[in-house]
């Protein structure tokens, strides 16, 4: 089975209603009205507009762009946390996102319990988790303390555990955020090999990063974003070159680039 991600003219907007707008205390009338009206009066702030791209099995895509360009929003859409407002986004394949490896860790629970909890949340069965435990323990080197609460671990140990569990499940589509460059040097070195094999096992990688070295190392394609629009889609070297050139800075985008065609 080959996985793919296909977006066609995908828009994403968020309602601009703030906490204050919705607060009964500050604004009782509009809060009550918003209960009744079906949202026609709300305003929306576009975050991504007119995105079209297609990733196929074997693609290693780097998301490039300055802060606020929409990298994380796009990753969240791909992860299914957010849903496109308009257009189509079709994803076929088991998706795993490592946007934040230590999500859902219970600091009072033991390391072993956290392995189970994380394993279950990754969709594994109890049997499958049990089978993976020796290998997780071996990588994380936490065997002696696995029955201690995770809060007694150093942050490095917590990171190793979370990372070992997260990378023990092999997805078809892998979404990675910046975090892998975080962590101490020792961890980065140790985990690199494991991460690379994890990436190799996946069919599609989508990786958001600022680091040109890592991008060049991991990715074959680049998607350059600016203000929520895809401004470049092509080879990673060319994408990085484009991103670093004056051309990227010079692009002026309208507040909404809804009609912009962006085909490969």
């Amino acid at each position: 089975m080959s996985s793919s991600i296909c977006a066609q003219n995908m828009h994403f907007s968020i309602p601009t209603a703030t906490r204050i707008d919705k607060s009964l205390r500050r604004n009782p009338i509009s809060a009550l009205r918003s209960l009744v009206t079906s949202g026609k009066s709300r305003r929306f702030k576009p975050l991504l507009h007119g995105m079209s791209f297609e990733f196929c099995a074997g693609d290693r895509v780097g998301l490039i762009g300055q802060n606020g360009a929409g990298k994380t929003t796009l990753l969240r859409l791909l992860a299914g946390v957010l849903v496109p407002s308009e257009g189509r986004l079709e994803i076929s394949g088991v998706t795993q996102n490592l946007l934040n490896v230590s999500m859902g860790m219970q600091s009072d629970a033991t390391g072993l319990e956290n392995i189970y909890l994380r394993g279950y949340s990754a969709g594994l069965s109890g049997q499958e988790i049990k089978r993976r435990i020796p290998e997780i323990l071996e990588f994380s080197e936490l065997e002696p303390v696995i029955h201690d609460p995770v809060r007694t671990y150093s942050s490095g140990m917590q990171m190793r555990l979370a990372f070992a569990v997260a990378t023990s499940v092999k997805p078809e589509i892998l979404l990675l955020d910046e975090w892998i460059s975080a962590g101490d040097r020792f961890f980065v070195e140790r985990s690199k090999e494991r991460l690379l094999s994890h990436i190799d096992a996946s069919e599609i990688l989508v990786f958001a990063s600022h680091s040109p070295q890592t991008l060049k190392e991991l990715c074959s394609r680049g998607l350059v974003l600016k203000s929520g629009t895809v401004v470049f889609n092509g080879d990673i070297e060319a994408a990085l070159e484009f991103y670093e050139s004056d051309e990227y800075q010079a692009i002026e985008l309208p507040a909404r680039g809804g009609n912009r065609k962006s085909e490969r």
Partner: protein
Amino acid sequence: METLVDSPVPGEAQRSGVAPKKDTGDTGAIRGRPSILALFQDIVAAFKAPGFWLYGAWIDTSLRHRSQALGAFWMVFGTLSFVLLLGTLYSRVLLRPGADSQIYYAHIATGFVLWIFIQQSLQQSSNIYKKNRDMIQNGYVKYVDYVLRLFSAHLISLAYNLLIIVGAILLTPVHVTAADFALILTVPLVFLAVLGVCFLLSVVGARYPDIGELMRSVLRLFFFITPIIWMPSMGKGAAVGAFIYLNPFYYLIEIIRGPLVYGVVPWFEIGVVAGALPIIWVLAALAYARAKPYVALWI
């Protein structure tokens, strides 16, 4: 050249500068709203892969009482002391002289144990998604699982507290009667009703954070309004009837307490709960389907 944005031609730049205003209308609404069956589909999926929420419920219960000498029995002791003290005091204050004070213990034990279960489930489900914001934002978007995790954690507590009900029934002259067979029907009814309201509140509470506070106040009030520490037979006049029969919690508690403690099958109350059940679940399904794409944005 694969650049997708051509360098802006003066004329075009101007045009696109104007264009935005035209279409900032209501095009931002999220499309592809899930069908009304989304809630039920997600529940079926959750029961097919129950690992996360079942294990999570167990972990939550276990963690709360870890490294305590009495552990989970603290739940029981808290409830037990409440039942014993209040039972002793109020059986003297509220009951007419000569009335059967022993059945009062069974009355308060059953009512209070059920009340804790209902109150905790409803209260916590109104901010359940906010509590799990971290996991939701990072991609675990099986919203049903969070509610089921919470609900089953409270079921575990309820199971511990059942010891008190059993004790109260054994120690007081409450007879096991044929009416107890009604529990086979009424217990699932109560669970389904509470679970349905939990789903409804979880969604509404995600959208309107005030709901959590509202529930806190309302539930505190209803503890005293609902016949838990008092008995319907103690009141006089139509006003008391209103407090009983317009009170949804009365029905939930009575359909279990009636058969268990008083040996009667309260058909009217059972009918009310059974009639409310479809309404609750349709509302919950509607709210869930409407809200599902937005939950991650609200919290």
